């Protein structure tokens, strides 16, 4: 059983970073991908991204992998623990949405 802080909500930045890393990517790729995924709504600053990547590495939610092309650039990939966290987050978000729809009567009312 993870400690209580491990069951809390992920930040939007972390959620989208983890989703991006289902395929290996370097920093610039992550920033672009997050922007594309969110239709330009979420723009990750390099300082914020750097801090998040380091925290995720220490937590073993992601790992650094050797880049295929340019060997100087570090690429990252999600780990099994990371995937588990994403799954937990999806379950949590589904609960939020279901309750929101139930009480407000959905978007159509």
């Amino acid at each position, binding site marked *: 059983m993870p400690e209580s802080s491990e069951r809390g909500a992920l*930040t939007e930045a972390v959620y989208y970073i983890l989703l991006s890393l289902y395929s290996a990517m*370097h920093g610039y790729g992550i920033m672009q991908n997050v922007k594309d995924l969110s239709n330009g709504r979420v723009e990750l600053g390099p300082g914020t991204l750097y801090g998040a990547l380091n925290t995720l590495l220490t937590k073993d939610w992601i790992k650094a992998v050797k880049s295929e092309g340019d060997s100087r650039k570090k690429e990252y990939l999600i780990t099994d623990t990371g995937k588990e966290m994403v799954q937990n987050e999806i379950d949590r978000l589904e609960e939020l949405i279901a309750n929101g729809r139930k009480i407000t009567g959905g978007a159509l009312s």
Partner: protein
Amino acid sequence: MKHIVRKPYWDYLKEEQWLNEMSARGFALTDYSWCRYVFADAEPGEYIYRIELLEHWPTHPESMAYIRFLEENGVECVATYMRWIYLRKKASEGSFDVYTDIDSKIKHYQRVNAFFTVLMCLEFGAALINVAGVLAFVLSSEPEFPTVNAICAGLLIVLGLIFVKLGSPIRKMIRRLKKEKTIRE
């Protein structure tokens, strides 16, 4: 062509704004050393500039790894001064903010606030020593008025107050962000 501008800035936020205004006029910062800015001609608005205070000096391995990460991601570090770094990114690549969520913004502002607070304490500490010299005269244990002490005390107090004033908007931003954080990320 190179343009050299000598200008003192106390407030890094105003300095950053000025660098962006210069960039908009076609002068792109390429180097900085104490109060000395070097600009090169560029397309007007070609670059967006940001100034950041690092946790360690730029030569520290952690800072070097961070700067390398920035450079890999299209951000150029044009100059460093003490723990401050001067960054730029091509405006054509989209908006440029180093920190984009509340948590990391608070962390950076707290670093800047601590920097000003340390300077403030140093100035006030040194002022206190000089004030003690003046007090010794007032309490007449010294025969001569300590003019040097009096002048130093005055100057140091002014300097200390400048750092209090510089930290004040930063502390206000931290308070605002912390309040914001109680309802959103």
